[in-house]
């Protein structure tokens, strides 16, 4: 599996640029690409979320805002320009820094959260060979980077100098750090079976055998634990207690406005995408077509495979999981702090540990 930085460097070689310049240029191109992807995904996902919630709540959702006079149809595509209008509104609203806030920390916090999401994308694959940088510790890197954001959340909550924000930040810290454990233990299972931390190897195993979700009953539980813990990591309902709207107003984001708030929003949606892509890669066969679930079809049938189809399949799976997240959000109420901790420490972690044990035995017997 190649990485896109290597590919870019190769394509620059005829230009005879100095090596350092070529590296910087290729990193910049990749960075801009990730940023655009995040922005695009946030735009689409916000619109999607609005329409999904409207559909579930028996309303229409945004209907008025269009793009260049195109207002869309009567039902689904109405208000297609709403997110763009919102983005412009967010970028042009006043950026308020409260007088008593710790201004330096308050300015830094959104960047840290954003950096966490941005850096995670370096290890995230988009298809076979389309990955910014292909580490041999890819899964570990993604796990590590996705937990950087919590520092930003604590900083934001503390620097706001608002009791509600502080509550949100503390809840968030406790929640994210706790749920890292079942998340990590569930990731360990595919790694254990494959014997490699490299994302390409993990998907390669699934191409040869079957999707990990169907590896064994324990792996199915592991997928469930992983996905629900991922929900908790991204602070989505039913685990949105750090920003519990009805309790803490907006939690750690209360004092933020304008562009800084938009960055929080962008990171939140980016995190959703990250969790969805990682769960698809680890458990749902990544960029493999659904024909490869059990690997029973003859090779000649597999014409939906390949790099381009890979992007399609990966994003189909990931977006479906994003939809499931939204579905959860509009169906479930919010857990209480102690119930959240109960679920993590007394349910998920024992189950994840037992899973680890049973999958090891399974491997010992069946492989």
């Amino acid at each position, binding site marked *: 599996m190649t990485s896109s930085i290597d590919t870019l460097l190769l394509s620059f070689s005829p230009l005879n640029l100095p090596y350092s310049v070529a590296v910087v240029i290729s990193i910049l191109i990749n960075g801009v690409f990730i940023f655009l992807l995040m922005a695009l995904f946030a735009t689409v996902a916000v619109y999607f979320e609005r329409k999904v919630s409207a559909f579930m709540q028996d309303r229409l959702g945004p209907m008025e805002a269009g793009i260049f006079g195109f207002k869309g149809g009567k039902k689904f595509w109405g208000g297609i320009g709403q997110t763009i209008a919102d983005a412009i509104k967010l970028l042009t609203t006043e950026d308020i820094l409260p007088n008593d806030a710790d201004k330096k920390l308050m300015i830094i916090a959104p960047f840290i959260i954003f950096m966490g999401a941005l850096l995670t994308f370096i290890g995230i694959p988009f298809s076979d060979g389309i990955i910014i940088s292909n580490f041999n510790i890819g899964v570990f890197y993604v796990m590590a980077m996705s937990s950087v954001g919590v520092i930003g959340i604590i900083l934001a909550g503390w620097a706001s100098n608002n009791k509600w924000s502080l509550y949100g930040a503390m809840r968030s810290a406790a929640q994210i750090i706790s749920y890292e454990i079942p998340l990590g233990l569930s990731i360990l299972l595919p790694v254990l079976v494959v014997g490699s931390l490299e994302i390409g190897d993990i998907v390669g195993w699934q191409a040869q055998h079957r999707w990990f979700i169907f590896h064994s009953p324990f792996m199915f539980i592991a997928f469930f634990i992983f996905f629900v813990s991922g929900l908790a990591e991204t602070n989505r309902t*039913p685990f949105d207690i750090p920003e519990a709207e*009805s*309790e803490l107003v907006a939690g750690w984001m209360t004092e933020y406005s304008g562009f800084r708030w938009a960055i929080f929003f962008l990171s939140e949606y980016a995190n959703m995408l990250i969790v969805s892509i990682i769960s698809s890669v680890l458990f749902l066969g990544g960029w493999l077509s659904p024909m490869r679930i059990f690997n029973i079809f003859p090779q000649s049938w597999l014409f939906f495979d390949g790099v381009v189809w890979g992007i399609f399949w990966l994003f189909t799976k990931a977006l479906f999981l994003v939809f499931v997240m939204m579905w959860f959000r509009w169906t479930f*109420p919010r857990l209480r*702090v102690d*119930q959240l901790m109960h679920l993590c420490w007394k349910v998920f972690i024992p189950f994840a540990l037992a899973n680890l044990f049973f999958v090891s035995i399974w491997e010992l017997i069946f492989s």
Partner: protein
Amino acid sequence: MSNQDKSIIKAEEMVLNMGPQHPSTHGVLRLKIHTDGEVVSKIEPIMGYLHRCFEKHCENLSYEQIVPYTDRCDYLASMHMNHSYAIAVEKLLEIEIPERVEYIRIIVAELQRIASHLVAIGAFGLDVGAITPFTWALRDRERILDLFEMLCGARLLYNYIWPGGVSHDLAPKFVHHTNEFLDYFEPMIKEYDQILSGNIIFVERTADVGIITPEVGINFGVTGPSLRGSGIPHDLRKDEPYSIYDKFDFDVPVGKGMMGSVGDCWDRYWVRMREMEESIKILRQALGRIPSGDVHSAIPKKVRPSKGEIYSRYETARGDVGFYIRSGGKNIPQRLKMRSPAFCNLSVFSEISEGWMMSDVITILGSLDIVLGEIDR
């Protein structure tokens, strides 16, 4: 979490100011919360941000002019306030009401009860974090408001039930449209049950939380669904039937502790759900046998009761509302005092919510279903 398993290590208390601008205090209630971490040790509710001198105003207004003011007390159940005030004045005047008027009043009162309970359960869901039931509830409430609009042109503050009668006779096809609404709404209750009543997280959040024991409930003067949630079948429609409620066949649902202990938040919610079903029962009976007649015949030309005083009770969506009126023989009351059910229900709030967590405080407040317009008056 309850009173006994508070953590042994006590940190410094933090005083949080919740409201009057807070999404979950149901209006302009302000709560001063003393917290130790997430656990709440003391709550001081502070009221009065919506005080409009209702009772003092009434001493300077004629009896007819007071009706729109009662609308603004409990703005989610204006019909009930109109009705309760009208009953009090009629008792004072000692006038007989035509039967058609009584039927119309009961129809609008029960429709209003459904509308008010819909807001209550929807907002309660919102308090625990479920957004979808709220929009569903408001969608169905909208249809009731449409019916009221058909009736009197107003959607929130109706000024519909006057002492001696109602402002307008039933609109043509009103009965038909109401029947249509009931046919639509009855299956909807099942849908609410599916998304909320049985929702595992909802049950987790509300069962065994904020228990009002029957003794505490009675001692604090809690009434309405909040008291019935504690298992006490106290309903003025049954106990002291006013208007013509004795002619109808309906049950008084009480909390049974199906998901936790009797009198928890889930029970209060559940009682409201079942009360909507009972209201539908009453409505079907009333719509079936509504007599004809003139709705304006009993409205007195001049409301000038002789000297005396009266206290009348009425079961609103929130509990017993009481009107004490003392007449000095003039066309304005000498003194008018309203017993606000939500105010008494709120008084139990700090008693039952101390020792719970921050999130539970919101849940408990939501389950009491307060309306600040009525508390502050």
